[in-house]
């Protein structure tokens, strides 16, 4: 990754709130991150940690009401998407930023052929005529490894298997050569052998097309295999962020450390008992004024109940939001 390159995507201090009858839910709290050209940023967290909501906030994909993006900047090549008009955003979605969702069945329209759905962005965004769009669609299907592509354009989504459908989704997302691809749990619904196929495909496509990717998942193994950098989310915040090798080898935040210890490893000797993180993730009913992990943290001390720790640098491009120093084992 070229260091110091201008980020394609720069998110600053993003806050998203859901206004419900039962009160506000603070789903995303001051999230900041950047994405350099050609880089793959992994975002991990459990359900409810705010990872999907963050990404949907970027492109105005959340229904409003109840969602409200309260604060922040989302700079795509220097332009603030939060200030863009709905019309302007529509030009960005699919054109400059591609999206791949978790469930390939519900995100493809069952009553249109796959060919129509791949050609749609090409004709809308790129102004291609039918014939050129069809040729490009064949190219794209071949790119994502679907055999007999020209014939399969006429097939409907239900005629494809789960893995093949996810390939179609990736083809649609890549149709207009986006600068950024956001993949929200794209392999979670797939079996491991099919997941391995898709991961291999993404690695290969990255090398060939050189786009920047944000990959959301709860699977630490997937992140370890494909990401350059990783952001760990908990309670609507990024609690740790850094180069993937550093974060896995020298995790600083107690949540990251615990998460890495709770998952059993296939290629390492079996542990006698699995480590557990006691308790439940927080419900974000209030603007956080203290550390969101304090109720489950083994190293909690008085300061954690009073202040929400800001992210502080602890290494080269590695930072954590914690008052505890993992190297000395003492409060900072």
């Amino acid at each position, binding site marked *: 990754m070229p260091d110091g390159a201008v980020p394609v995507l720069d998110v600053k201090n993003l806050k998203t709130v859901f206004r419900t009858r039962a009160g506000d839910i603070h789903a995303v709290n001051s999230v900041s991150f950047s994405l350099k050209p050609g880089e793959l940023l992994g975002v991990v967290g459990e359900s409810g940690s705010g990872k999907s909501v963050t990404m949907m906030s970027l492109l105005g994909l959340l229904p409003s009401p109840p969602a409200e993006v309260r604060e922040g900047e989302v700079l795509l090549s220097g332009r603030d998407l939060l200030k863009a008009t709905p019309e302007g955003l529509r030009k960005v979605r699919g054109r400059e930023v591609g999206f791949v969702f978790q469930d390939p069945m519900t995100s493809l329209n069952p009553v249109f052929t796959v060919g129509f759905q791949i050609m749609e962005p090409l004709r809308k965004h790129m102004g291609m005529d039918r014939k050129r769009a069809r040729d490009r669609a064949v190219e794209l299907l071949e790119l994502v490894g679907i055999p007999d592509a020209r014939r399969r354009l006429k097939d409907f989504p239900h005629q494809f298997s789960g893995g093949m459908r996810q390939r179609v989704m990736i083809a649609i997302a890549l149709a207009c050569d986006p600068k950024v691809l956001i993949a929200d749990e794209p392999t979670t619904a797939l079996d491991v*052998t099919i997941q*391995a*196929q898709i991961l291999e495909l993404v690695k290969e496509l990255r090398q060939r097309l050189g786009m920047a990717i944000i990959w959301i998942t709860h699977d630490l193994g997937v992140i370890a295999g494909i990401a350059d950098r990783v952001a760990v989310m908990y309670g609507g915040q990024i609690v740790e962020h850094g180069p993937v*090798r550093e974060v896995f080898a020298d995790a600083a935040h107690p949540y990251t450390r615990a998460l890495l210890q709770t998952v059993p490893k296939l290629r*390492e000797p079996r542990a006698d008992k699995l480590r*557990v993180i006691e308790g*439940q993730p927080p419900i974000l009913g209030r603007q956080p004024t203290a550390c969101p992990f304090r109720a489950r943290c083994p190293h909690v001390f008085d300061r954690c109940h009073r202040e929400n720790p800001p992210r502080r640098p602890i290494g080269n491009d590695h930072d954590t939001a914690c008052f505890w120093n993992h190297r000395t084992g003492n409060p900072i």
Partner: protein
Amino acid sequence: MSGGRKKLVEVRNLKMHFPIVGGLLRRQVGAVKAVDDVTFDIYEGETLGVVGESGCGKSTCGRAVLRLYDITAGSIKIDGTEIGKMSQTQLRKLRPTMQMVFQDPQACLNPRMTVAAIIAEPLEEHGKLSGKDRLNRVYELMDAVGLNRNFANRYPHAFSGGQRQRIGIARALALNPKFIVCDEPIAALDVSIQAQVVNLLEELQDRFGLTYMFISHDLSMVKHIADRVAVMYLGKIVELAPREALYTNPLHPYTEALMSAVPEPDPAIEARVQRIILKGDVPSPANPPKGCNFCTRCPKVMDICHKIDPEFREIEPGHFVACHLHDATMPKTRTSADQTGAAPRPEHIQQGENA
């Protein structure tokens, strides 16, 4: 390891075929062979892990073993009693010994019943306990699975996914069963909650001497919890072995590929893993290929695989495999993997270091 231990569950040539009907007269035109001729034992007090991808028949197998279906063929003995052909009325008397924990804790709990009522229901159906004793038993079970007694009168929606799974486990334990089929009990839970539930299951096993059939697609978790592991592909068990033997020395090419596909939460290991990427998708169980079921995707496929379905044989003590690569191997004489003449095993880490 299985020497003198008692077999609690003995399954022989179990088949579960679902008919496909068609035409004007609704005649049977085919069958989905969800479980096709599987044979295995489960020893008392052990956990048999069953792994495989979606559609391989692992859940059907678990349900068939408990006779939640009327099976197509085969024999199932639980604690010495043949239940394969029993009527549901007769089976009802045996239900207390065999219970099930389901995958989706949201769907398997009645939203209109309180937790106490859910856990007490099997006691009412089968037990002789009076009102007060029954409530005490419910409290006892709630303690055993780590639920707060004060929440006994709440409804399932008030609980988180992990807690709901605990309710499901308490219900399964209510009648002091010997054998519990756990069908993907952790698949719907978050990573940090999965470990809590798995530890609970292990603790309960030690305490009550339970025997588990643990069905899961998560190979890492099965490696943690199971004593022996069966790998299923397209309705058949392709390999069955003690945990260590299976994970260090997988003999079936499908087991190898499946294990190599599992991502490891460690970038250093990930960088060295040699992945075996399978081509294509699983064929339909309504129309399995001729010969070996895996022949359409197998990286080591031979001519014979397209013609003859390999036999499920014991290659080493306790290590069963159904693959023609091991046809020449005489049972129990094999000392190292190399003798099979097969390509080198993916001892991932070592292989990676040499490369």
